[in-house]
């Protein structure tokens, strides 16, 4: 008789809720009439996210029962995991609101049947009148549940499975754009092939680490690495391969090449979801691997990761300057931001962790608001993302141009925005941790990166609107809420970051 390991159901409740809701979402797809599906799915998935959030908050508030290693040692629910899960849920909630928007165009941003060949008669028909696909909600929930598992994984195998669980739905979501379907499919293909490539590296890394440590849970890896017996090459090579898999997901150079293509081709709500949530999940996993699993190596890998961080901030900033498409510009800016976050990770210690956790939330909310705004600027072909089309938008719609200006200033790290506080805490932590050389690269990169942002601002306000300047659609309730939450959070976290910094400080503790 097999004895099952004890399960701490209270600790893994958010995961169970989300996986359960995603499965039910598939059933809703089968049984609810087509007209009612979108609203049902939207409310259902939002309710699931809120329910999961309630359990996370309840657990985080309960000081005595905060830490648990459960499910046979596969899942750790510690303070850092709870913080990351909570922020993932908040970010996903806001992005789901953009998923649900249907007033901007009929059927929303998603195609009804992705399998219909592009350009065929049937495709023209469905472009004109069909309702959008609603499978996107269960897919997003599966992905979100995988992310929650990813940041709480206590061994490398769970981490690998969670990595795939959150990646596979994302590949599909990328292929579901209603407009510009060829671009969307191409983005999905590129994301899928490169993502599968990276996860194969990750799995081989798992195998090598298993060969060295005789186990894949982080505590054993830590002990084995600290003792340092046996063939250390196995461990170092294993860590290198694991790092390739993780750095691909966070979009660090030189593993960033997929980012601009996928961000541009994917439907904009999905891009927002990826930019905020995937980044948070991937960094959550990365810090757990480095701080909990491979801490025993004594941070010998810092120079290598430091070089990657320096390369990432520079590549992201320099290539952002040359971009002519807004979604691509934000993609390269997201690459650069991955570099700033890596600097925070390498800062080490409590301060480094705290700054990374704060940065993830602050950046996530800002980037969701920015992509929400991009969904609003439209012409007959859907979203007008080319930079030249945004010229003169300030005269057309001062309110939205003003909000976008504010968000760009936050990306550039101007004081009184969350971007400033986030960069300040990351760079401060890095100076404290003795990584001043990285901070120098970070600051240079921020200065370069300010140029493309300001160019957009100047174009919006100082150019005359032309014949081809698209109009800014009035957003529905959902997009306005997402946009409002993101913008207000950007302002509040910039003016009064104390509360979240405090939370992040308390959360910056792993258990082994």
């Amino acid at each position, binding site marked *: 008789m097999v004895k099952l390991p004890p399960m701490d159901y209270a600790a893994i409740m958010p995961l169970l809720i989300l996986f359960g809701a995603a499965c039910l979402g598939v059933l809703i797809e089968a049984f609810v009439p087509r007209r009612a599906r979108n609203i049902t799915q939207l409310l259902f998935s939002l309710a699931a996210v809120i329910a999961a959030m309630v359990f996370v908050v309840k657990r985080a508030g309960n000081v005595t029962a905060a830490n648990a290693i459960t499910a046979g040692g596969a899942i750790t629910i510690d303070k850092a995991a709870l913080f990351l899960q909570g922020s993932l849920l908040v970010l996903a909630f806001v992005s789901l609101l953009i998923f649900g928007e249907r007033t901007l165009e009929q059927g929303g941003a998603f195609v009804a049947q992705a399998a219909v060949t592009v350009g065929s008669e049937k495709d023209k028909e469905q472009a004109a009148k069909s309702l959008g696909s609603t499978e996107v909600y269960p897919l997003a929930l599966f992905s979100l549940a995988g992310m929650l598992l990813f940041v709480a994984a206590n061994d490398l195998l769970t981490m690998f499975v969670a990595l795939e669980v959150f990646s*596979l739905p994302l590949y599909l979501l990328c292929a579901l754009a209603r407009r510009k379907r060829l671009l969307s499919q191409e983005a999905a293909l590129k994301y899928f092939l490169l993502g599968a490539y990276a996860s194969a590296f990750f*799995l081989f890394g798992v195998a090598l680490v298993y060969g060295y440590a*005789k186990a894949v849970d982080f505590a054993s890896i830590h002990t084995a690495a600290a003792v340092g017996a046996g063939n250390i090459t196995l461990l170092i090579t294993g860590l290198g391969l694991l790092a390739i898999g993780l750095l691909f997901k966070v979009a660090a150079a030189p593993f960033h090449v997929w980012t*601009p293509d996928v961000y541009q081709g994917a439907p904009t709500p999905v891009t927002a979801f990826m930019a905020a949530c995937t980044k948070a999940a991937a960094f959550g996993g990365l810090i757990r691997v480095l701080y909990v699993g491979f801490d025993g190596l004594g941070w010998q890998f810092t120079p290598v990761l430091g070089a990657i961080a320096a390369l990432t901030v520079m590549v992201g900033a320099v290539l952002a300057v040359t971009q002519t498409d807004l979604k691509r510009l934000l993609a390269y800016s997201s690459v650069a931001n991955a570099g700033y976050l890596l600097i925070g990770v390498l800062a080490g210690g409590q301060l480094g962790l705290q700054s990374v956790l704060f940065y993830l939330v602050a950046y996530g909310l800002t980037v969701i608001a920015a992509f929400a705004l991009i969904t609003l600027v439209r012409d007959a072909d859907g979203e007008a993302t080319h930079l030249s089309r945004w010229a003169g938008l300030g005269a057309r719609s001062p309110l939205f141009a003003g909000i976008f200006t504010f968000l760009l200033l936050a990306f550039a790290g101007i004081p009184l925005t969350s971007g400033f506080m986030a960069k300040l805490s990351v760079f401060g932590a890095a100076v404290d941790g003795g990584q001043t050389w990285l901070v120098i690269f970070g600051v240079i990169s921020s200065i370069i990166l300010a140029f493309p942002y300001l160019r957009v601002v100047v174009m919006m306000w100082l150019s005359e609107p032309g014949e081809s300047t698209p109009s800014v659609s009035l957003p529905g309730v959902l997009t306005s809420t997402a946009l409002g939450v993101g913008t207000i959070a950007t302002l509040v976290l910039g003016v009064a970051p104390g509360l979240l910094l405090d939370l992040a400080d308390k959360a910056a503790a792993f258990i082994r």
Partner: protein
Amino acid sequence: MTPMWYIVLAAVLFSIGAVGVLVRRNAIVLFMCVELMLNAANLALVTFSRINGTLDGQIMAFFAMVVAAAEVVIGLAIIMLIFRTRRSASVDDANLLKY
């Protein structure tokens, strides 16, 4: 026969797959190369399981197989989608997104 040779074989298979992804053009072949890499990892896991004298590695190989199967479903769906539109599975033809 020392089990270390199997690790060498796994490393060789993994490298063939890794290089294959970089040099081949057809999306299906690329995908097969990725599968080769995953299976090389499985071989390494099972061999290390033997060397270490624990069963964990073999169980992990099962997990990896299931994940690989799920990946095939998603991957082939996406490749089919592209193929239907473009009548080609070459990754060089999918070149609308660049710079």
